[in-house]
């Protein structure tokens, strides 16, 4: 730097700032000091109630309060736009040394105008850190201010918040809340001062205490319910939450009081979800014996609790045709084999008539357990629900993956759902092939028990249709074999 023409050797200057966030005042004094060639180590900056940074041991009273007289032709003081932007933020930091740092950088900028680009410089970095933490604090203020509604004497609503910022940001952030809540009457009370907006003008008030703010708001109960419900207990990531919502903010957030119980409940809740949601984790069976074993032990749906046994499929493990019924009936449950009751006998007759060898097909059911209701001494068949079919689909898919039939015959709507995962109309789908995702062909027809429930001409008519479906299936089977 040039020689210190205007500064008496050894003079110290103590600049008292009128407010801790008064950047304009600092800027004006700093400009004067640079013009008078006062080096950084000769200045201390003192905020209200503070002792300054450099001469703390000497007490605030020491040092010249008045600036030296400006030289006759003061030189222009220059700083990059980037410095001014960052300094404006950093000046709001609560670090008492910030104004000293700002002045040192301003001083260095005079000989090195591109200093701010040197981000590896420790002082530049420090300034950026200060600015960054102020911006973060401001951002958290935008996020975590929580208004509570009170009714004023004139009956109008007034929204009041209590917030504890880390830095001197309240005045600077008032404009954000004004833009957002322009037509609302609101106040933000903080230990560093308060701001009030009445819809037209902004007023500043003295520092406040927590007790000055209202203590509750009925809408908070709804907000807490929302907070607890939107939380997904299947994915607990407490660290991620804490890094963005550190504990220091919790005491002023109505929802934060729920956090400990949500975390504690999360794992229990997920465990409950998994059991209620049907299955424990298990590996997909790779043999028919494993399917039979697994289905027997399966308790994923309520049917399994009826006290019946799981009826496994039967047939050659490489069968080209798989026949899928709805569920075992009374006699199947007793015998432990599929399609042995009246419907099974009817099916056998029709298969024989169509020229299909049942022994060459793999025969199974969409649902492996017999669902029934007691009627006197009899166990009366109950149709399985969509949910039960979907649950049992796990076993049916395993069977398909093992047997790998090229043709699948679904008897009735339940079987079709077990194979397709959606409910389809049998009358609409019958008579044509549906491509399954593993490439197999699915043919849908009615369940033989449907024929048993009909009488007279209707039965004959449906039996003919059923026979026709099986005949077409026989044809396909022949084509595929050929």
């Amino acid at each position, binding site marked *: 730097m040039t020689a210190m023409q205007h500064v008496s050797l050894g003079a110290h200057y103590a600049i008292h700032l009128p407010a801790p966030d008064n950047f304009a005042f600092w800027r004006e004094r700093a400009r004067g000091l640079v013009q008078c060639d006062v080096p950084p180590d000769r200045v201390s900056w003192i905020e209200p109630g503070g002792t300054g940074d450099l001469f703390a041991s000497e007490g605030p009273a020491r040092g010249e309060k008045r600036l030296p007289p400006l030289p006759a032709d003061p030189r222009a003081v220059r700083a990059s736009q980037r410095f001014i932007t960052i300094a404006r933020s950093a000046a709001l930091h609560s670090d008492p040394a910030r104004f000293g740092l700002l002045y040192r950088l301003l001083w260095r900028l005079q000989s090195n105008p*591109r200093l701010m*680009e*040197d*981000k*590896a410089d420790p002082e530049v970095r420090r300034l950026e850190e200060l600015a960054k933490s102020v911006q973060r604090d401001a951002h958290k203020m935008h*996020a*975590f*201010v*929580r*208004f509570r*509604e009170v009714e004023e004497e004139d009956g109008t609503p007034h*929204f009041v*918040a209590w917030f504890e910022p880390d830095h001197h940001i309240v005045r600077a952030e008032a404009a954000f809340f004004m*833009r*957002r809540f*322009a*037509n609302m009457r609101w106040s933000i009370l903080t230990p560093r001062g308060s701001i009030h907006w009445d819809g037209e003008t902004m007023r500043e008030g003295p520092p406040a205490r927590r007790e000055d703010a209202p203590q509750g708001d009925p*809408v908070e*109960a*709804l*907000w807490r*319910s*929302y*907070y*607890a*419900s*939107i*939380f*997904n*207990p*299947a*994915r*607990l*990531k*407490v660290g*991620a*939450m804490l890094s963005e*919502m550190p504990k220091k903010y919790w005491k002023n957030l109505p929802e934060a009081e729920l*956090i400990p119980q*949500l*975390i504690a409940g999360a*794992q229990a809740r*997920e465990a409950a*979800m*998994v059991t*209620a*949601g*049907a299955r424990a*984790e298990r590996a*997909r069976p790779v043999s028919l014996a494993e399917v039979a074993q697994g289905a027997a032990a399966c308790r994923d749906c309520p049917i399994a609790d009826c006290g019946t046994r799981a009826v496994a499929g039967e047939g050659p493990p490489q069968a080209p045709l798989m026949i899928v019924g709805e569920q075992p009936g009374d006699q199947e449950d007793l015998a432990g084999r599929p399609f042995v009751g009246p419907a099974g006998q009817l099916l056998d007759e029709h298969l024989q008539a169509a020229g299909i060898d049942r022994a060459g097909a793999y025969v199974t059911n969409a649902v492996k357990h017999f669902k029934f209701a007691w009627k006197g001494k009899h166990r009366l068949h109950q149709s399985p629900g*969509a*949910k039960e079919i*979907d649950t*049992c*689909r*796990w076993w049916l*898919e395993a069977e398909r993956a093992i047997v790998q039939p090229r043709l699948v015959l679904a008897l009735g709507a339940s079987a079709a759902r077990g194979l397709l*995962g*959606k409910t389809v109309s049998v009358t609409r789908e019958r008579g044509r092939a549906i491509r399954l*995702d593993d490439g197999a062909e699915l043919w849908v027809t009615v369940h033989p028990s449907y024929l048993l429930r009909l009488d007279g001409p209707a039965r004959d008519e449906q039996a003919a249709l059923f026979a026709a479906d099986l005949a077409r299936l026989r044809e396909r089977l022949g084509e595929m074999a050929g």
Partner: protein
Amino acid sequence: MAQQSLRQRLEILADAAKYDASCASSGTAKKNSLGGKGVGSTEGMGICHAYAPDGRCISLLKILLTNHCIFDCHYCINRKSANTPRARFTPQEVVDLTLNFYRRNYIEGLFLSSGIVKSANHTMEQLVEVARILREEHDFRGYIHLKTIPEADAEIIHAAGLYADRVSINVELPTTAGLTRLAPDKNAGQIEGAMGRTKARIIEAKDERKRFRHAPRFAPAGQSTQMIVGADGANDAAIIGKASRLYGTFGLRRVYYSAFSPIPDASAVLPLKRPPLLREHRLYQSDWLMRFYGFAPQEVADAAEADGNLPLDIDPKLAWALKFRESFPVDVNRAPRELLLRVPGLGTKAVARILTVRRHRTLRLEDVARLTASVAKVRPFICTVDWRPTFLTDRADLRGLLVRKSEQLELF
């Protein structure tokens, strides 16, 4: 059934909405309530008003209008055959909730979705009605994200875009086969058709605003979509390919990934093991690599392991660097931006800093240390005037040195 209270319904319909990952409120047109009659402002950057213990931000009131649904998609908690409690809001109730929350500074706005009731058109009309009341009757200037239903008529979807900041249509699953299997009522062609029309409308509206200052805005925050990861068999390479196609074809702002998580009353068709949450994270990282780091989709896919999935123990950028070691070390004092961006541990900001700083000084390793979060991670892949990692880069066990020792926990 007894009348449910507003609070009970809020619990049901917020619970039902939590599987939508997006909560973004950023990137829309700037607006504020000065000179208006209501409340609300959007100033570019989104604000997260709270964080839940699942680590996700709560920026918007994210709810369903109703969770009654005539569709039967297996991965969805609200599917027709699920045994879950049902509830519905009237549009006015949603409006009141939104405004009450907004005035207390709990939220940035509303993210409204719905189960399909009666018909796609009827449901979409109800969603639009909520947005209309907020915008027109209350002059609400906060953020609105509407989920649109691809099966609804184009005019209704158009009306949604006029009120909303963002519209989104979920592609749901990365593969068409997965969609057919798990969402039998949905149709991939229809979804992409709706996305294509929305894209055209967004471009049209932007173009009109260039010529007429008062032309209406259409979804100024663009459109996004969501894919469920781990419910069908698609591997990461397939998902990345799908995402990059979606970005390219439909000009999406974001593709969200949602790791399939066990839902109450899950359908038995779904896989048994939920994918580790980390997989979702790795996919987002690869998304970033494509959007901000100049990686081509194929290059990200190259970082995947033999099964087509990204490694879980290291991030995809490091995985790529370890596979293509011949591209390293990169000289931080000379390399162009594109190459610096390939260095594991150097983010876009660190690269920008390096580029400015090196105009002033020749970088030494200690300078790099000051400009980055972890020099240990960067060191094997760079050289400076005083550092050359000849030995490190060729080491066979380099991966072992860089992988964090602690195992990533699965929550269970």
